[in-house]
């Protein structure tokens, strides 16, 4: 029996480490692994990869990418500075980039990502991540045509962080939105790195503005979240509503003079805690601090 249990655990562990390929729409696929989602657009010019997970996961990620194409990775876009989105840049390009100078991959982030990665407090820990970025932008959107498709990178200021990007694959009609949207877990509002609850809501509303649902609110534009299953506009609506309603409740409690501890004790997210993973206290605290922060 113990042997059987061990075998089940071993198999489960092996499955959990595997990176799966899920075709989404047009030329775009989603790679699903333990570190989150990766978006790949593959065509005759090469590949665009949005987010790279971690260096440790690079061999599994590359094995999955090779199921889609043998062409080199030409563009990498990081949706934020998080280590599980950017940490695989260098390792992945070593495995799947090109040695030809003309085909050297461009690694794109908003400039705030690089600025934060080279800040004195974090530079030592994230030096290889910072070094992997070679193409920042500051005017949104940054766009380019690749594999016959317009790829548009939009900056979402002060959302999950202040360097978030979302990527629209215009012909395939797919949005890759990083950790601004995580359908099965509470969002992380990284106040230290410039995130805010209002910025997060602005970004979610922008995604809703850009997405066009198919007949009767289904399909149409597909949305690849930073973590979790493939979604469409209707799923983003549920998530946006959740953030809005909890924000409104915390705002009301602040107006009534409640302290952070009192707000947390009031459990303003309690009807969502059975649905979304992650710490409700951390989420509520980030909303509280975001709403009570002094404007610069």
């Amino acid at each position, binding site marked *: 029996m113990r042997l059987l249990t061990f075998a089940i655990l071993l198999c489960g562990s092996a499955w959990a480490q595997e990176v*799966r390929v*899920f075709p989404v729409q047009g030329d775009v696929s*989603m790679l*699903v692994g333990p570190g989150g989602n990766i978006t790949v657009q593959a065509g005759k010019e090469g590949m665009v990869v949005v987010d790279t997970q971690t260096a440790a996961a690079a061999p599994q990620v590359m094995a999955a990418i090779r199921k889609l194409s043998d062409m080199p990775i030409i563009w990498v876009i990081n949706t934020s500075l998080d280590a599980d989105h950017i940490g695989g840049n260098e390792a992945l390009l070593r495995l799947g980039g090109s040695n030809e100078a003309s085909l050297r991959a461009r690694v794109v982030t908003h400039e705030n990502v690089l600025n934060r990665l080279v800040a004195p407090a974090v530079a030592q820990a994230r030096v290889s991540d910072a070094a992997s970025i070679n193409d920042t932008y500051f005017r949104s959107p940054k766009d380019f045509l690749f594999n016959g498709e317009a790829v548009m990178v939009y900056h979402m200021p002060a959302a999950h962080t202040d360097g978030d990007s979302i990527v629209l694959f215009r012909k395939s009609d797919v949005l890759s939105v990083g950790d601004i949207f995580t359908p099965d877990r509470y969002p992380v509002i990284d106040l230290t790195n410039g995130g805010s609850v209002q910025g997060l*809501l*602005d970004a979610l*509303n922008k995604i*809703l503005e850009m997405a066009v*649902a198919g*007949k*009767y*609110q*289904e*399909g149409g534009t*597909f949305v690849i979240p930073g973590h*979790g*299953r*493939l*979604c*469409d*506009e*209707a*799923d983003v*609506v*549920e998530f*946006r*509503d959740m953030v*809005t*309603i909890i924000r*409104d*409740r915390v705002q*009301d409690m602040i107006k009534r003079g409640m302290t952070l501890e009192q707000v947390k004790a009031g459990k*303003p997210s*309690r*009807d*969502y*805690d*059975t*649905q979304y993973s992650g710490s409700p206290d951390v989420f509520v605290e980030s909303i509280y601090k975001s709403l009570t922060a002094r404007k610069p």
Partner: protein
Amino acid sequence: MSKAAMLVVCAALWGVPAFAQVDFSGEWAPLYHEDGPERLPGPELGDYTELPINDAARLRADSWDADRISVVEQYQCRPHGSDYSMRGLGNMRVWREIDPATQRLVGFHTHMLAWDSERTLYMDGRPHPPEYANHTWQGFSTAVWEGTMLTVTTTHLKENYIRRNGVPRSDQAIVTEHWMRHGEYLTVVTVIDDPVFLTEPLVRSDNWYLDPGQHIGIFGCEHAPELPKAEGVVPHHLPGTNPYLHEISEWYGIPYEATRGGAETLYPEYRLKLNGYKAPPKCDRYCTCTTLFDCQLR
């Protein structure tokens, strides 16, 4: 009996289930004698009776504001989930798909009046999609025979409601249906397992009669801004501020606690707890409600 003859008999028996199966094909019109007021005019606000909901579902429903359907454009054309569409606007067409090579049944297709919703009940043994696949309003359904009853399992549903006064059903729910045909009548028993919002399975039944002359028209829906509003507004009631929650208790004479739902309130023993309950002297609301045309408020 020779081996060859036995093989012939076995081969014939192998095909028997296909002939013993029930055909659900046809135009089906819904019967609303069960839960008529809830299904036709719509449930009363704050009516959570007969629902084994948890505290999270109760607060979610308390917070729900019907303005959301109008103010949030994406809600305007949002369909019922396949579990709920069986209960409302449930005129349904069913047709079967036969594999021309084997003459075996590979599945049933359904078309509902509500939002032109279409669903396939796959019977070819295909697996359900992986957990990271997208969810839909109809979900992904597979079906197997249990005698003459068809048992359908549906996963990959989008979040929706189990009662359209805001009581939610999550996207993690698994819905099991048992389809039974009795001549010109069809009964579908639906069992909803929802680890997010229910403390025990919710069991409901719906009935149809065969109506060969039925014509299901196009539903049609186009969303559009209906009210001037600030971007991102989501109408809802803050906890403890919904003024409508006691209406059902006052109108029907049901103790407020009983209207709040929960598994305990489903069972006959719960009546023993309703001390002092007195039914209203006469029916005053939705007293006849068996079709869309006789369901008058008073």
